[in-house]
């Protein structure tokens, strides 16, 4: 499938809704927890077992983004969005079959493996196209799309819950809900497939970058630069710090104010979690757009430096003031979202637009790593502190100190980011085509 070139007069403002239709759909992944209790009671599963489809989906997200990035660059955004649509929707359809026949392995295979592949390809599908359409505001453009990934759970969570309420929480009700999800998302994502266009004059990535594009680095060369690994550390540390709050947000706010005059109720804790989601989403578009004005390196100084300061505030003063605790947590979560949304523009600044989608895909392995690291640190330490007889805010003190340390590591890594050395640049167009022929990417 050749990349769809925009006809004369095509508006670049048609590309963000195309990207959003994909990201708002695949963002459903973070609402998987809605299906957990019904699956557990209908199929007799444990909590660990019912989490399997989501966990496999996140692993597949990282793997397909990392290994499918070059294919996405080569075949263009329409191909990638079509693959994402087919995988994500058919994942639900296979899961529907699994629920209807009470074969749980089919749900794991469908939602986790097939759907998860769609998550990764869908996540990176619009990135380089948006950057090419908005060279003046790449942070804002990718911020809009990646905000959609945060917004997807906001839509899916109440929608899926309502559907299960209507269809019932037994296996046939779950199967029907999966079926409706699969079909609805297929229709919704079709907008992206139909609308997405690459700018006129844009050539396929395989023919090399234009000589007018400035610094351009291939995905294969990018992973051999220290800049890529510095950014990998930056993203991993920033995401780990955000997950440190996200993972245990509800019990955390309850524990912090358990001994006070106004303890936090379960519904207030749920409201806190919802506010964190809003901050996460707002940070994606807000901070990423700000990076177009103050520069990528500076915005990451803010994420990592001020983020560490906010963690210090919570650690030392958090239990004395509820507004201070809530405000600090909101700022940390806005930086978490901002870190995700700004990184494609940072990659574009360093490596150019040539294979920025593929490079972004490879960088997302930092997300997978952080997804394991963050919950591990917070849960292990909280469990140990509880076993040692501690309670309240002291359950989390050590975790917060570790988060401050991790953010400091990320801050230092960001300071090491420098322009990429000329030996990594892709040569002039004719030579680039020769290089592409001699080094076919297998990833």
């Amino acid at each position, binding site marked *: 499938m050749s990349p769809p070139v925009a006809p004369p007069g*095509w508006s670049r403002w048609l590309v963000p809704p195309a990207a959003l239709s994909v990201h708002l759909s695949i963002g459903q992944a973070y609402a998987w927890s809605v299906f957990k209790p019904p699956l557990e009671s209908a199929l007799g599963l444990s909590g660990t077992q019912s989490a399997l489809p989501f966990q496999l989906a996140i692993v597949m997200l990282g793997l397909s983004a990392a290994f499918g990035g070059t294919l996405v660059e080569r075949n263009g955004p329409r191909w990638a969005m079509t693959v994402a649509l087919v995988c994500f929707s058919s994942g639900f359809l296979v899961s529907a079959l699994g629920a209807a026949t009470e074969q749980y392995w089919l749900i794991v295979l469908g939602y986790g493996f097939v759907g998860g592949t769609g998550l990764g390809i869908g996540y990176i599908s619009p990135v380089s196209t948006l950057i090419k359409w908005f060279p003046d505001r790449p942070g804002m453009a990718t911020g809009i799309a990646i905000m959609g990934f945060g917004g997807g759970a906001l839509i899916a969570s*109440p929608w899926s819950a309502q559907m299960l309420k209507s269809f019932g929480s037994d296996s046939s009700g779950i199967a029907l809900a999966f079926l409706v999800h699969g079909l609805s998302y297929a229709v919704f994502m079709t907008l992206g497939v139909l609308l997405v266009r690459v700018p006129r004059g844009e050539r396929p990535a395989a023919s090399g970058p234009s000589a007018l594009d400035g610094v351009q680095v291939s995905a294969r060369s990018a992973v051999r630069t220290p800049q890529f690994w510095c950014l990998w550390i930056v993203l991993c540390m920033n995401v780990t710090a955000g997950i440190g709050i996200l993972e245990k947000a509800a019990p955390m706010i309850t524990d912090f104010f358990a001994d006070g005059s106004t303890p936090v109720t379960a519904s207030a804790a749920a409201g806190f979690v919802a506010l964190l989601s809003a901050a996460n989403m707002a940070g994606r578009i807000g901070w990423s757009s700000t990076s177009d004005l103050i520069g990528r390196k500076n915005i990451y100084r803010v994420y990592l430096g001020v983020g560490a300061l906010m963690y210090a505030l919570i650690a030392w003063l958090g239990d004395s003031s509820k507004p201070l605790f809530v405000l600090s947590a909101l700022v940390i979560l806005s930086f978490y979202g901002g870190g995700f949304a700004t990184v494609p523009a940072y990659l574009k600044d360093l490596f150019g637009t040539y294979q920025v989608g593929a490079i972004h895909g490879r960088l997302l392995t930092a997300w997978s790593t952080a997804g394991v690291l963050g919950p591990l640190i917070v849960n292990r330490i909280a469990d140990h502190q509880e076993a040692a007889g501690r309670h309240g805010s002291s359950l989390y003190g050590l975790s917060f100190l570790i988060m401050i340390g991790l953010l400091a590591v990320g801050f230092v890594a960001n300071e090491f980011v420098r322009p990429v050395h000329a030996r990594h640049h892709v040569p002039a167009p004719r030579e680039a085509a020769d290089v592409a022929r001699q080094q076919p990417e297998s990833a």
Partner: protein
Amino acid sequence: MSHDSSPSPPDRRVLIVLAWLWVGAPLCYGLYELVQKAAQLFSG
């Protein structure tokens, strides 16, 4: 006096509005549900 014979590109404004409505409507629904839930922090 020169005449431009090439046809002017079609007006895409309606398409832009429809496309943004397509993604904006469900997002507004999600945000509405979120605000209702978040309000529990102050009332709960």
